[in-house]
């Protein structure tokens, strides 16, 4: 087979774990290399994914049509009430707007959309060219806020001004402006905010239920099944519980500084991490031993039901090999553990946006010979899938066809999934999906290594 090499500018973002060999620190937190077909998106994407689930807000994309069209109803972030987030609004800038400025169009768009849809707040996303033509979005937002009486928040998400992570930050910045504007009256001392949980396929509801069973009050979920009024009173919670650390750690730190709310990092994927996320919250309230008791109760009930049902999958999947390439590194840690619990090993682990600490931890967790990549691309992913003879790839939409072309199973662990993978039930769904894909008889027809079947 033809040798596939790693691009010169990317060699520091790929390494293989080998003992006895001195290894370079992985280089990350950098912009993608021009021409390398990164699987990443842009600043706008980062902001859009974080704020998208806020269901009673108007999300207006200020720019040409593409950015709004490609993000119309693409996430499985569900709402228990209003569904304004599932519509797509754009100022649809035309050539003349680019020449003469888009402020007027933005103003009129906002006024008419707010009148029609009566949102609780509006988020205005700037896209690439808005950053160039110099529209004063702040001024337009202020004016509209004054006239309509709702918060109108600019999100500075010009695509080229950084990476997806900067987009997360811009979104958190907009959220910070809302937090602290609502009343905290009646909020229990034993209360939390769930941060970085987007309610894909109803996952936030599952998690929320566990915490409520423990006697914990969930003040707000940022941003899954999100509501503006809940965001406004988030500063009344005693603890921030941060999942998807890439997107929300900044917000947690800001809230810690401004409101003195401590935060912990958790993950809801896999039995081990899911249980830990309940215990860690319980530990935060040591004066109430009943909370810890309730946490133990939840875990024991759930595991008792889950464990036997996993054995069928474990038996079938034992010894199979997985490749993981997802957005955030934190998810990778959980996935490695979850896969091990169903008998699978990990031969490739990587993320779009991990940082140095993340990769150090990954290296520690991984088995000998595991390849670790930052901001990878289809050529590299294919190379390692083939070289390491993976049976499964875990990723998002862009990774899916790579797996299927190469004739291996795939598990969608991205925003579009329709099946909850968080929580104990999520672990069952995850194992089931992996099992159904890896064990499918269709792979018998896939040509392997150039051999015709």
């Amino acid at each position, binding site marked *: 087979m033809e040798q596939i090499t790693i691009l010169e*500018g990317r060699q520091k973002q790929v390494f293989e774990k080998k003992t006895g060999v001195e290894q370079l620190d992985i280089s990350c937190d950098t*912009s*993608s*290399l*021009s*021409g*390398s*077909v*990164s*699987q*990443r998106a*842009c600043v706008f*994407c980062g902001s859009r994914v974080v704020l998208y689930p806020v269901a009673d807000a108007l999300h*207006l994309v200020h720019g*040409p*049509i*593409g*950015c*709004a*069209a*490609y993000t*119309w*109803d*693409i996430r499985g972030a569900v709402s228990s009430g209003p569904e304004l987030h*599932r*519509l*797509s609004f754009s*100022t649809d800038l*035309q*050539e003349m707007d*680019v020449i003469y400025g888009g402020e007027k169009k933005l103003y*009129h768009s906002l006024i*008419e*959309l707010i009148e029609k849809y009566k949102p609780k707040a509006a988020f205005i996303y700037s896209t*690439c*060219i808005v*950053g*160039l033509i110099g529209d004063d979005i702040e001024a337009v937002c202020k004016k509209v806020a004054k006239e309509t009486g709702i918060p109108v928040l600019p999100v500075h998400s010009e*695509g*080229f*001004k*950084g*990476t997806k992570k900067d987009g997360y930050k811009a979104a958190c910045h907009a959220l910070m402006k809302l937090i602290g504007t609502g009343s905290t009256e009646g909020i229990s001392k034993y209360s939390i905010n769930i941060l970085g949980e987007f309610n894909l396929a109803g996952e936030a509801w599952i998690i929320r239920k566990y915490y409520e069973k423990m006697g914990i009050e969930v003040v707000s979920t940022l941003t899954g099944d999100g509501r503006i009024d809940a965001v406004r009173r988030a500063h009344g919670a005693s603890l921030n519980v941060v999942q998807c650390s890439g997107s929300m750690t900044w917000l947690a730190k800001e809230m810690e500084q401004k409101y003195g709310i401590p935060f912990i990092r958790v993950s809801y994927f896999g039995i081990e991490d899911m249980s830990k996320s309940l215990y860690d919250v319980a530990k935060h309230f040591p004066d109430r031993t009943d909370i810890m008791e309730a946490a133990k109760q939840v875990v024991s009930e759930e595991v008792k039901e889950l464990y036997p049902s996993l054995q069928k999958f474990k038996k079938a999947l034992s010894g199979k090999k997985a490749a993981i390439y997802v957005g955030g590194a934190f998810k990778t840690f959980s996935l490695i553990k979850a896969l091990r619990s169903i008998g699978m090993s990990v031969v490739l682990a990587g993320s779009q946006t991990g940082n140095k600490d993340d990769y150090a931890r990954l290296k520690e967790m991984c088995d000998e010979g595991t390849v670790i990549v930052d901001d990878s691309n*289809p*050529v590299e992913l*294919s190379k390692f899938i083939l070289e390491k003879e993976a049976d499964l790839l875990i990723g998002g*939409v*862009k990774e*899916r*066809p*790579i797996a*299927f*072309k*190469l*004739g291996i199973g795939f598990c969608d662990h991205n925003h579009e999934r329709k099946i909850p993978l968080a929580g104990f039930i999520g672990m069952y769904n995850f194992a089931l999906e992996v099992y159904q894909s890896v064990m499918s008889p269709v792979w018998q*027809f*896939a*040509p392997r*290594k150039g*051999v015709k079947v």
Partner: protein
Amino acid sequence: MKHAKTATQNACKLCNPLGACLAFRGIENCVPFLHGSQGCATYIRRYLISHYKEPIDIASSNFHEETAVFGGSHNLKIGLKNVSEQYKPAVIGVATTCLSETIGDDVPGILREYKQEFKNGSPMPVLIHASTPSYQGSHIDGFHAAVRATVKTLAEKGARENLINIFPNMISPADIRYLKEILEDFQVPYMLLPDYSQTMDGGPWGEYHRIPPGGTPASVIAMAGSARASIEFGSTLEASKSAAGYLEDAFGVTRYHLSLPIGIKESDKFFSLLETLTQQDRPEKYNDERRRLVDAYADGHKYVFEQKVIIYGEEDLVVGMTAFLSEIGITPVLCASGGKSGLLRKSIKELIPDMDDMGIKVREGVDFVDIEDEAQLLKPDFLIGNSKGYTMSRKNNIPLLRLGFPIHDRFGGQRMHHLGYRGTQELFDRIVNTVIEQRQNASSIGYTYM
């Protein structure tokens, strides 16, 4: 009083660069390359993958802040070099974005410099540049811009060959395969562009392919200038924006301009043209296809007669579908498009002169909220168009018959036929079944014969 809308709500169009990327995938050994932010390439890949279910690599020059200030020349060159090294392409199709267009990058100039600077390196791919600012037009304009730019870059003058160019517009991989079959059956050499029938709907890989197999080779596109004629589908596609228009101007290759051949009348025009150009009768197999279709029309006519539909999508698809629907007795009470060529009404009128008497309404430059408003007034029996109409279909309880692009909520959009007798047959069957299913569901008796 109702005000004119300012904001676009649930757009019935996509942006210019998407069309260009799809068109470039129809050239053999070609990598599409977007000169702009990383997000453009990623979003477009995701969107195309969800329809075609194929790996779709689109490179990006990945603008940063400094790039936007100082110009994208440096990034573009590094990007081209990296793509050349990693993909070893024969062609790189560079399309611009709103960002690089707004800062005014001179892409042709940068490509010339690049060729000069790297001429002694590895084999130099052909570099094509299409100008596709997203603040102009929609995805279909980007598609045509890329096809025209490809021909402009590659076509050469030569002695007249017995070759027919065919520019089929943005159609499904299955449609492309059918067109190729027809041309092969006529035993006429052809140059079809773009041909993504295999790159966007191919087989499994025993080993890694940098670029999926398939597509029109650059060497074949080079012959386009010496072809005897070009056939171009697309009623609203003007010669000044089209590949065939360019070939006519530059090389005197006659441009035959047809609407998308959907329905018997428009398919007849296409087959007749092929007969004229090749001086031979169509193979009997196509008469058989046509006969079966006429027979099916007879069998199904009562189900469809005087049904009212709304058809939406790219303007040329809407024109073709309108011609077909009107010949089976269905009234397209609204022909709608997010595109805005200014030619939609005129093109429909050319095919259906009594359109106004028939109650056919035409609207360009609309979004799905506009179409939904119309639907509530016009009360169509069903909707015909891509998956993005599902939101209004569900909300208003009007069935949706899916076709075109994108099909994101059904399986096999890439294998759906639309063109010629075969495509029309498939569409007719699906339409009749939509009506039957509706009646069956609405019946309290539960007939097993319908």
